C-alpha cells in the first residue's frame, strides 16, 4: 500500500506548492491604497448597466455612470441640492414662472472639442420625446409645453414643443405650468444633452441598439469620458480634458464594478478593493456600526410600502374593498419593531407615504401604531377578530429584506388582528408583470423620487398613471394634484399636496412601511463626498486623500 500513499500525496503537495507560490506574490497593494495614491476611485455599482444612453436607460447603476459622463444645463450642489450652474452659466425665470432662459457658457465643449449649443439640447429633447425612441423617462420632459403631445404622437411638429434656440448660446424652455421644482428636475439625466452627430454615425438615431455608447465611439460632455467597458467586470471612466470645469476635477479615473451580491461586495471592500460600496448586507451593519467611520447611513428620498389591489375585477377579496380593513392592516403594524429588529435600525419607520422634510413638506396626519383601534375598525367593518377576511396573499420579489419583513408582518397581522396571510415570492420579472397587470392582492413596492419634491411620490397615484398599479382612482385626489401643478404660490402648492396625501392615507391603497436610508461603506480617504437625500455625489468634487488614517474594520462575529 505504501506506494499508493505517496501517489495520493502528489496532487496535494502540488496544491500546497501552488498556493505558496501564489501567496508570495499576493502581498501586492490593494486597489484602495494604490487608488489613493493615483486618484483612482474604485466604486461598487450594483449591476451591469444595460446601456449608457441617457435616453434608453432607467436604472440606478446607469444613472451613476451617466452622471460622470454627461452634464445638464443646471446641476445641484451636493451639500444642499440647490441649483448650481452646469452647461448653463446662468438663467432667468419669467415672473409667471413658466418661461426659463438659459445662457450656455462659451467654454462648454463636447469631449471631441465641438462646442455645446442650444441646438444640441433641442435635438436631444426631440430624440427622447420621439415616439419611436420609446424612452422610459420621456415623461420627465412632459412639463414642457406640448412635450406630452409630441411624445404620444398626437403632435407631429417638434417646433411647437416649448423649447427654442434664441441663439447658439441662449435656450428658452416654456413650461405648461409654473413648476416649482423645475430646476431640480434638470439634474436628472433625461434632460442631459447627447451628441446626435455621433449617434447618427453609429446607427439609426432612434435605435436602441445604437453603438454610439461604446467606449470607442462615445462623445459626451461631462467631467469624465468613457475609457473602457468590460461587461460584468468593470467600467473605467477617465478625467475629461475638454470639460469646462476640469480644473476642479481631481480624480484621474473611476472604476465602476457591477457587483450584484452585497455579501461579495462587502468582502471586496474588506479586502481593500473598493473605496465605496453600493450597499451593505443588513447582517453586517451591527458590526460596522461599532467601528464607526466606514459605515454611512443617510436618509434617502424613498418609501417602502405595500400596494393593495383595489381593482374589483382583479382582487376577489371582499374585505379589502373596505377602507377600514386596509387602515386596520396598517395600524396593526409595529413599524418600530420591524425597523429595529428586521432592518437592524437602518431605515426609519414610515407613518406617512411621502418622506417628510425636504422642501419643507410635512404630512397632515400621520398613521399610528394602535392594534386596539385596528381591532375596533375590523369590528366596525364586520370582520371581528379577522373572521371572514380570508387568507390575504402578499406578493414580493425574492431578494433583499423583502422576505424577513413579509414574514414579520405576516405574524403581526395574525397576532393582532387574527388575519391569516400567505407570502408569495416571485421571480423579479413575474413580480413586475403581476404588479403591472394588477394580478396580486398585496404587493411589496417601493418608490424612489426622481427629483426633490413630494410631487414625485404623489403624482404616481393619479388615475391612469403608469405607476399607479393599484386600480385606485379618486377624482378628488386627481383634482388636488392638478391644482398643485397650477399653483405658483409655494405654500398653497404644498397645501394641495398635503391634502392629497391625507386622502391617499385615508383611502389606503398603500400601506407605508419605512422610509429608505442609504446604507453603504466608504473608506475615510474619500473626500468631497457629501451626504444628501437624493444619494447624489457629483464626482467632480470627489477626491482621495492619501494621508487619511487607515480604516478600522470590524472583527465580525464578535460584535453582539
Amino acid at each position, binding site marked *: *500500500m505504501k506506494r499508493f500513499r505517496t501517489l495520493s500525496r502528489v496532487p496535494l503537495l502540488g496544491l500546497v506548492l501552488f498556493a505558496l507560490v501564489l501567496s508570495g506574490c499576493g502581498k501586492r497593494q490593494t486597489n484602495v491604497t494604490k487608488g489613493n495614491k493615483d486618484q483612482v476611485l474604485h466604486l461598487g455599482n450594483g449591476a451591469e448597466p444595460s446601456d449608457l444612453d441617457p435616453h434608453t436607460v432607467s436604472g440606478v447603476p446607469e444613472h451613476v455612470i451617466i452622471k460622470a459622463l454627461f452634464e445638464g444645463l443646471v446641476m445641484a450642489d451636493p451639500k444642499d441640492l440647490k441649483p448650481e450652474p452646469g452647461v448653463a452659466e446662468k438663467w432667468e425665470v419669467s415672473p409667471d414662472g413658466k418661461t426659463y432662459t438659459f445662457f450656455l457658457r462659451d467654454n462648454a465643449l463636447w469631449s471631441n472639442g465641438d462646442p455645446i449649443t442650444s441646438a444640441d439640447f433641442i435635438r436631444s429633447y426631440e430624440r427622447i420625446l420621439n415616439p419611436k425612441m420609446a424612452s422610459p423617462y420621456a415623461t420627465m420632459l412632459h412639463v414642457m409645453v406640448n412635450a406630452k403631445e409630441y411624445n404620444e404622437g398626437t403632435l407631429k411638429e417638434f417646433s411647437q414643443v416649448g423649447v427654442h434656440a434664441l441663439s447658439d448660446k441662449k435656450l428658452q424652455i416654456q413650461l405648461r405650468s409654473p413648476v416649482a421644482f423645475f430646476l431640480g428636475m434638470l439634474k436628472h439625466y433625461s434632460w442631459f444633452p447627447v451628441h446626435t452627430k455621433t449617434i447618427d454615425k453609429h446607427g439609426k438615431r432612434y435605435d436602441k*441598439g445604437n453603438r454610439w455608447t461604446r467606449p470607442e465611439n462615445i462623445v459626451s460632455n461631462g467631467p469624465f469620458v468613457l475609457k473602457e467597458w468590460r461587461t460584468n467586470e468593470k467600467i473605467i471612466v477617465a478625467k475629461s480634458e475638454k470639460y469646462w470645469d476640469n480644473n476642479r476635477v481631481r480624480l484621474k479615473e473611476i472604476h465602476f464594478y457591477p457587483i450584484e451580491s452585497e455579501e461579495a461586495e462587502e468582502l*471586496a471592500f474588506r479586502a481593500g478593493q473598493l473605496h465605496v460600496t453600493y450597499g451593505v448586507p443588513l447582517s453586517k451593519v451591527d458590526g460596522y456600526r461599532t467601528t464607526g467611520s466606514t459605515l454611512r447611513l443617510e436618509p434617502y428620498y424613498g418609501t417602502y410600502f405595500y400596494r393593495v389591489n383595489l381593482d374589483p375585477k382583479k382582487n376577489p377579496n371582499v374585505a379589502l374593498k373596505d377602507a377600514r380593513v386596509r387602515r386596520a392592516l396598517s395600524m396593526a403594524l409595529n413599524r418600530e419593531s420591524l425597523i429595529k429588529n428586521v432592518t437592524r435600525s437602518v431605515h426609519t419607520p414610515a407613518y406617512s407615504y411621502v418622506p417628510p422634510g425636504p422642501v419643507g413638506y410635512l404630512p397632515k396626519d400621520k398613521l399610528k401604531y394602535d392594534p386596539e383601534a385596528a381591532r375596533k375598525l375590523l369590528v366596525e367593518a364586520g370582520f371581528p377578530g379577522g373572521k371572514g377576511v380570508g387568507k390575504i396573499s402578499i406578493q414580493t420579489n425574492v431578494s433583499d429584506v423583502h422576505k424577513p419583513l413579509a414574514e414579520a408582518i405576516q405574524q403581526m397581522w395574525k397576532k393582532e388582528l387574527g388575519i391569516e396571510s400567505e407570502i408569495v415570492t416571485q421571480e423579479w420579472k413575474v413580480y413586475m*408583470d403581476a404588479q403591472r397587470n394588477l394580478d396580486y392582492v398585496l404587493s411589496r413596492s417601493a418608490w424612489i423620487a426622481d427629483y426633490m419634491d413630494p410631487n414625485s411620490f404623489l403624482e404616481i397615484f393619479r388615475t391612469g398613471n403608469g405607476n399607479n398599479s393599484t386600480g385606485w382612482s379618486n377624482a378628488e385626489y386627481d383634482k388636488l394634484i392638478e391644482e398643485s401643478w397650477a399653483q405658483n404660490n409655494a405654500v398653497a402648492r404644498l397645501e394641495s399636496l398635503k391634502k392629497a396625501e391625507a386622502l391617499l392615507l385615508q383611502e389606503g391603497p398603500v400601506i407605508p412601511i419605512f422610509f429608505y436610508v442609504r446604507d453603504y461603506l466608504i473608506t475615510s480617504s474619500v473626500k468631497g463626498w457629501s451626504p444628501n437625500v437624493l444619494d447624489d455625489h457629483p464626482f467632480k468634487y470627489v477626491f482621495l486623500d492619501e494621508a487619511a488614517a487607515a480604516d478600522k474594520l470590524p472583527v465580525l462575529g464578535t460584535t453582539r
Partner: protein
Amino acid sequence: MLKFIANRVAQTLAVLFVVGTITFFLVRLAPGSPFDQERNMSPDVRRNMEEYYGFDKPLLVQYYRYFSGIILRGDFGPSYKYTNRTVTELIAESLPISVELGLYGMAIAISIGVVAGVVASLRPNTVTDYVPMSLSMVGITLPTFVSGPVLLLVFGIYLRWFSVSGWSEAEDKVLPAITLGLYYAAYFARLSRGGMLEVMSQDYIRTARAKGASETRIVFRHALRGGLLPAISFFGPALAGIISGSFTVETIFQIPGLGRYFVTAASNRDYTMIMGTVVLFAALICVFNMLVDIVLAWLNPRLRLE
C-alpha cells in the same frame, strides 16, 4: 473517420435547430417580458418598444425572422437587456473566461478525483477505500454557495493569500478553480473507482498478476488505460456543464464569465440572449461528446471495430 464526423455534424445541426425552436416558444410562454422594469412604462411607450423589437408581429413571423437571421447572417441579434451589445459579442467576451475557469476546475477535479478513485479501488471496503472517497465527496455534499464563501473567508480575508474577486491576476483564479473543482471531484472519483474495479477483475489483469508483474506495473501499465475510460467519457459533458453551470462561482467571485448568463438571461427574459446561450450549450454538448467519442475510439481498439 471523415464520414463519422460529417454524420455527427449533421446530427448536431439538427439537434441545435430543434433545441432552438423549442426554446424560442418556451421563453415566450413564461410570464414577464424583457421590458418589465422597476418603473412602468406608459402603454404608448411599451407599444413602441414592442413594435421596435417586432413583438407586435405574429409569433411565426418573429420565429422566421429570427431564425433566418441566424442561418443567413449568423446574427443572434442584440441583447434585449444590454442594448448596446449583441448576443454574439457578449458570448465572445465571456466564453473564453468560462472555458479557462472550467479547465482549471477540471484539472483540479481530475487530479483529486482520479487519484482518489484509483486508490480507493485497490482495496475496496477498507479504510483506504473509504477515506479517499469521502474526501472526494466533500464537494458534492455542500452547495458551492457555501464552500465558495468559506474558502473566500478563510483564504481571501483571514489569511489574505488570494484575492476575493476579479479575474485578471493568477491569484484571482485559485479559489474559484478550487471551488469548482471540488464539486466535480466526486464524479471523477466514482467513475474511476468503478472503472478500475471492473478492469481489475478482468482476465488479462489476472494473467499479468499470475506472471508475477508487480502491483505498480499492473496498475500503471495495464489497468489504468481501461479503468479510466468511464472518467474520460464524462469529461465532455462535464466540461459543458462546468462552463454553463458556474453561475454560483462566477457570482461569488465576481468573474465576468458566461455561466452567469445561464441564469441572468432567463431571469431578465432577455430572449435573444437565452437563445444564444441555449444554442451554444447544445453545440458544446454535441461537440464535446463527439470529441470524447473520438478519443475513446483511439484509446479502446475494441470500440473502433464496432
